Structures are given as C-alpha cells and as structure tokens.
C-alpha cells in the first residue's frame, strides 16, 4: 500500500488515500471524491485529466495528448498514470470544469430572452393555447454536456429565473455511449442518477428558486426534455437497450411520473412531464425543439439541425418529418479538441488569419484573455487555415511559419502564445483536433445528404435551415459552408434559435395543448437509423475532406 496525496487547487485541505501498487490515479481520485473530468472515460484520448506530480513517482507511457515538454514539467494524465510508490499530486481547478456555472444557450442574454418570448408567442399564435395556472413551473433541458433550466410563472408566461450547469455525469464520459457503459457497471445506475439529479438538477432548482424568490411549494409542474439516453439515465432505465442492436430503447414515452417518483424536491404530486423520444438517438430534446421551430405548422421544407454533443437532424414540414442522428461527437461544444471549450468566458469565437503571415486575429465571447476555442471559433479557424493554405484538404499542415510547430504527431497551429493566453500555455490546434473536427463536420453533412437522398431530394430543395444547440449564435454560416459542414445554399436561408429544447420544454410547461402537440410530433416523425443506411459510410468518407471530395457541391455556379 502506498499513500497518494491530492492537493486540489483552491481547496485548503489535502486529501490522502491509501492505494495499491498499480492503481490508476484517475480511479483513485474518483474514489476519494475528487472531481476530475474524464470526457473520454479514462481511455487516454482526450488529454483533459491533467494533474501535476509534485513529489514521488507515477508510471505513465508517453501519450500524444501530453506533449513531451509538459511531461518534463511533471504533468501527467491521471487516467494513464499508475501508482508505483508514495506520491503527491496537484489537481488544477480546471480539472473539474463541469462544476463551474457555464452560460450557454440558456436564456441568459437579453437576445436569447427576446428569442424565447418570440418563440412562445409564435407557438401560441399557431393554434396552441396556454393552460393558465396560478402557480409556477420548471422546464429542464438535460443535455449530455450541459443542463439548463428556467422557472416560469405559468400565468404570465414570464421567465422568473434561469440557470445552467455542466452535467455532473461528464466525469463518467463525454458521450452517451460511455455513460451507458458506466451505467451498466455495478452501482452505475445509482451513480449516474445521483450525478445528474443530486449534483446537477437539484442545485440548479435551488438557484432557480433563490433567484426568483419562490419556494418549492410554488412549483406545480415540471417538464424535462433530454435525449433518449439522458431520460433513461435520469429515471434509472437500462441504457443498454439504446447502445445495443436492435437499438430499441426501454421507452419512447414516459408518462404518469410525479415529483415523488422523479425524486425532485417539489410537492410530491406535481406532474413531471418528459418530452417523448423518437428513437434511440433522437430524443425528447428534439421533439421539444421541433415544437419551437414551428416547422410543424409551415409549408416550407425546413432542415432543423441541433448541434449539441451529438448532431440531430429533422427535415420536413407540416405534412411529414424525417429525423436522424449522426455521431458527430462533442467537437462543436469544444469536446474532443485539445484546446476546445464551451461557448463561455475566454472562448475564442471568431478567427481571421492573414494569408501571408499566418498571424491570427480573434475575438472572445467575453473576458480579457483567451482560454480556448469554442465551436464557432473552431469552424472559423479551420476555415481560415484551409483558406490560407496552411492546411491541405485532409486537414494536414503544409506550410511553414513561426505559428506552426511540427512534432512527431504532425503540425500544431499556435492561436495564442503562452504570454497572451489566460492559461499560461500556448493555445494550439493540432492535427488530431483537425481530424476530429473534420469527422464531426463530415457526420453532419453526410447525414444531411443521406436523409435528403432517401427522399430523392437535394440540398436545393431546402427552403430554410434552422440551427440550434450549444454551438452558439456566433456561428459563421459562410465559414461553415466553406469547410463543407453545411450545404451551399444562400446564407439568408439559415437562422439560429439557441436552445430550442429548453424553449420547447417551456412551452410544454405553459400549455397542455403544446404537450399534446409534442407527443403528436414524436409519433409522426420517421426515424432513419443511419448506421444501417447503405450509402451513409460512403457519403461520410466523401465528406471527410475540405470542403468535400466532390468539390462541385461547394462551387459557385
């Protein structure tokens, strides 16, 4: 037995634990209750679980996610390190980013509030009437990465308070598959449920009540919209049915649940309404989102894209709708990217690169110094690197510049040098990041093409595109088109509607007819399973190129 001591930044007391030789440092930390994010679930592929060895020794094989220079400075990846003796480890505060309150598309800005009010009005003027009540309700969007919620006055339809927080389940993996695998381990069901309910939703509800001056007894109704996995994990249903063939979830519609059964601290008989799922990978967040888009009430052929931790697409109009999910991964929210982060303070959200010097100019969402790149910043930088010829169509670096550093794993583009960054380290994008992002954008574009092809339609048949999700309103459509992520149709056909899942959930809170409508939408949508669609892999490979292997799709005619 050895003693492993954790010194956690901003925490006064050291945490000591006794561990066996060969014990994994990440596991030891989790057992000791120390929160270290492991979006890749400890597979050594994300590089987010960095800790610093202060004394003693740990055994760790070289890993491409940890540059040699950092290794020399005693940084280690917790998930790849084994205990071989007594050791003292320093855990930076950034290791548990999920705990920090994060502002994404969650009604926090005046712009988003205006969009919310506009959407609610739109829904009510589409023939769905509000069911007036004297009390209050809470709408919750459980995202894989972020949970956002709003407390509403059910009479005036006003938002009284709103809050959001990283989903506490993130330390069990960034994506739904890893979460399900964790859920199926002994005690996993309770752990995952606790992480989202006790550690995420209940604190959010407390914030909502405090900020609105209401008490728990004022709440008469709760609406939850989440993807199929999130709803399963929340209620404690087996997620394996989602992960394994034939991919039929335990439930599509979850009805008759009250606050007592859901374990939420409001009057026990308050109904908890779940937005219905359509399939394993198109869930309640999408059915609620479709309500928000009003595409169910329009003749216009609408493509609705939710760019969250995964990409979900809905195409159709008032007469029919098709939907599918594509495993785009978390790149649009900054996941799976070494310098990636969510669209919050310190995030670079737009980039311009000088063609001759390759020097960048960038803007931040807010804050003084850059900390990383969010989804829209990533789209920009990849578009710019490609436009300036710094990277080729495969996403490999091909130019020389003081901004480009080559190592054994390929090129790295330095967006901000250590001296100007808020992290004290260079903010740089490597070829692995480019690969991940190109695969993510290819997943989206090939899904659009495959879905349209199944209707014998082409991108020219799209009347409008509505984008939702955590990618942020800063998304530059022209640049997204230039890298082949979105189809080349006039940019004025595109619009961004923020967190449509939360807005849809709010509408369901305010109106029983809206709830009925969402169930209607869910039952009438045709779900396409892309993994069994014969042409999808081919489309995907063709899209893994900048902008696309078939360049004619992205040429001005």
């Amino acid at each position, binding site marked *: 037995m050895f003693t492993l001591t954790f010194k956690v930044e901003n925490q006064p007391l050291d945490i000591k634990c006794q561990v066996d030789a060969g014990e994994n440092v990440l596991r030891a930390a989790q057992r000791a209750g120390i929160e270290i994010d492991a979006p890749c679930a400890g597979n050594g592929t994300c590089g987010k679980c960095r800790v610093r060895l202060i004394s003693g020794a740990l055994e760790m094989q070289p890993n491409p996610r940890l540059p040699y220079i950092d290794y020399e400075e005693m940084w280690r990846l917790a998930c790849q390190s084994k205990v071989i003796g007594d050791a003292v480890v320093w855990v930076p505060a950034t290791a548990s980013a999920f705990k920090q309150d994060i502002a994404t598309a969650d009604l926090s800005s005046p712009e988003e509030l205006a969009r919310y009010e506009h959407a609610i009005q739109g829904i009510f003027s589409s023939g769905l009437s509000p069911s007036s009540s004297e009390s209050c309700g809470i709408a919750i969007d459980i995202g894989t990465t972020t949970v956002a919620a709003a407390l509403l006055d059910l009479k005036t339809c006003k938002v009284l308070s709103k809050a959001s927080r990283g989903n506490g389940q993130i330390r069990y993996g960034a994506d739904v598959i890893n979460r399900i695998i964790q859920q199926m381990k002994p005690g996993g069901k309770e752990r995952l449920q606790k992480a989202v309910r006790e550690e995420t939703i209940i604190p959010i509800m407390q914030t909502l009540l405090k900020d609105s001056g209401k008490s728990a007894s004022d709440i008469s109704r709760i609406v939850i919209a989440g993807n199929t996995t999130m709803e399963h994990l929340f209620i404690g249903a087996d997620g394996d049915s989602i992960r394994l063939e034939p991919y039929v979830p335990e439930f599509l519609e979850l009805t008759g649940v009250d606050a007592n059964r859901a374990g939420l601290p409001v009057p026990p008989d308050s109904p908890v309404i779940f937005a219905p799922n359509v399939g394993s990978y198109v869930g309640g967040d999408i059915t609620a989102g479709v309500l928000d888009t009003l595409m169910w009430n329009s003749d216009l052929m609408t493509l609705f894209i939710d760019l969250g931790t995964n990409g979900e697409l809905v195409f159709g109009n008032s007469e029919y709708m098709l939907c599918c999910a594509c495993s785009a991964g978390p790149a649009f929210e900054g996941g799976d990217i070494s310098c990636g982060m969510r669209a919050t303070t310190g995030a670079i959200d737009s980039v311009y690169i000088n063609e001759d010097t390759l020097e960048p100019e960038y803007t931040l969402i807010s804050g003084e110094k850059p900390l990383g790149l969010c989804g829209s910043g990533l789209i920009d930088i990849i578009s710019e690197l490609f436009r300036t010829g710094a990277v*080729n*169509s*495969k996403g490999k670096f*091909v130019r020389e510049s003081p901004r480009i550093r080559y190592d054994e794993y390929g090129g790295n583009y330095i967006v901000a040098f250590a001296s100007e960054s808020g992290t004290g380290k260079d903010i740089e994008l490597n070829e692995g990041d480019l690969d991940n992002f190109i695969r993510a954008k290819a997943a989206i574009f090939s899904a659009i093409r495959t879905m349209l092809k199944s209707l014998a339609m082409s991108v020219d048949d799209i009347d409008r595109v509505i984008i939702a999700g955590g990618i942020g309103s800063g998304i530059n459509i022209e640049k997204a088109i230039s890298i082949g992520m979105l189809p080349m149709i006039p940019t004025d056909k595109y619009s961004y509607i923020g967190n449509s899942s939360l807005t849809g959930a709010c509408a369901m809170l305010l109106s029983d007819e809206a709830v009925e409508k969402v169930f209607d939408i869910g039952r009438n949508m045709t779900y396409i399973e892309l993994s069994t669609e014969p042409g999808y892999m*081919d489309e995907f*490979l*063709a899209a*893994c*190129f900048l902008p696309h*292997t078939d*360049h004619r799709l992205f040429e001005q005619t």
Partner: protein
Amino acid sequence: MAFTRKPQVYSSSINEVTIGVGEKAVTFGGSNIMPLYTFDAPAKNKVAIGVEITDSGVDRTLPGIAAYYEGAETISEIAARAAEMPGADFVVLALNGADPNGDNRPVEECVEIAKQVADAIDVPLAIVGARNVEKDTALFTAISEALQGKNVLFVSAREEDYKTIAASAVMAYSNKISAESAVDINLAKQLNVLLSQMGIKPESYVMNVGAAAAGYGYDYVASTLDRVKDAALAQNDVMLQMPIITPVSQEAWAVKEAIVTEEDYPDWGDRETRGVDMEVCTAAAVIAGGSDAVILRHPQSVATISGLIADLM
C-alpha cells in the same frame, strides 16, 4: 428495323502518362471508352504489362521462372532477360529486401541495384518500394536522383508519404509516381486532389486504387474500378481521370492458392499452375475493370495476358 449502332464514346478521356524515354517509352491511358469497349472507338493506348523482378532476383523455386531466367545470374542479366520477355512493355524492380522489418537492405545498395537494372534495359523502369513510409521516402528520393532523366515510375506514394515523394521524385527530378489508396473511390480521389494541390501535373502521376487477388475481396476492387471509370468518363471528374496501374503479382502470389505445396494439398495440383492461374484471372479482371497497366511476375502470365490484350484491344 435495322440495328443502329450507338457507340458509347465519352467526351472525357483518361489522362495520358508516359514512362521511360526514347522509342520504347510506354504511355498509359488516353482512352475515352469503357474498358475494352474497342468496338465503340479504338483505344488510345493498349494496356501495358510490367514484368516484376526483385532486388534479390527472381523466385527460382518455380520451374517456369527458373527456366526462363536460366543463365541470368547477376541483377543486370536478370533485368535484361525480363526486358526481353515476349509481351512485356516495361520492367518493375520491387525492392522487397529494403523492408526495415525484413532484410532492411540499405538505401545505397538499393540505389546501386536500381542503377544496374536501369543500365541493363532499354524499356521503361518502375520501382516498387518497401511499403514502409520512412524507407520509401528515402529510397524514392535517392533513386530519383540517381536515375535522373530516365523517367522512372515510383509505386507508390500514399497519403502518409505523398508530399515528400512527390516533391523529390516529380518536382525535383521529373519522374512519375503512382498514388495508392485502399480500395475506396473517395480516398483515391482525395489523394489525387492533394497531389494536384501541390502543383503536380496530371501527366505526372497514375493511381493504384488497390488490388486483391480474385476471391480475396475482389468484389470491392471491382466496384471501386467501376465507379472510378464511371466518374472519370461519364461524369468528367478530372480528379479521377488518372490512368490506373495494378500491381497484380504481389497480390496473386501471396494467397494460399499460390503458396501451399502440392505435397500438402495433392488435390490442388501443381503449385506453379495455381499461381499462374491466380495471376492471370486477377489481371484479366482488373483489365476488364479499367486498369491501364498491370504488373505480373510469371512469363506464362505475361504471355497469356498480352495475348488477351492483343485480341481484345
């Protein structure tokens, strides 16, 4: 009603790529018809055949090969004999011994062998590397320099090493390269785009879209070839109009049918016959699919395939 012939002639055509110099230079591609559809229009150039020898000579355990190369001992003699093979258009030197996981023959020795081969023959030369990224880059660069002016074809440049190989072999020394991809039309096209983005001219490279011996996943090769030719000719996709070279020998002679002995599998009969059969049917299949050049090993395969080409083209 009388039958009216409607020749299926395309307005697009496959690029022409020439290797070697002088009278015996060989040009691949150039046609604007479906493979072997010479009833629609004459083929611009016939399918070319390269005869493979290796840095360590030829496989004399096969009686037919031993008999053909009898008396040819040095690499120069072997190369000269290969160049004279009836039906052969060019000689292919496969540097199998350069593989770092095998004999790891040093680059300088390989260069020396390549020079001897080039000096011994009057037909064009193609060099097949060790299929190792670092070694191939070093080999192709050094041989390019040593064989300046010979217009050699290097097989192959892949996604991992195309940049250096194209820069040295093509840009610096005006040789030709083959762009290799793994039996996928998208990957084939992507590599061609990357080469063209580097400024490599269409007349400077061919492609190897991957091969498999008949019965060993050949269906993928067949559909890839079909789609590539359709895109190149019917859809005028300029990034898929490169002529195709298929190294048949290395696939055909590596499968069980060509390896196991007659003692172990008496029912299967003579090993050499089996190997030749695999080589011939694979080569015939890729030619029917649109390959503009094939690399073969056995004199009998060369005779059979050159006969087929003469009859059908």
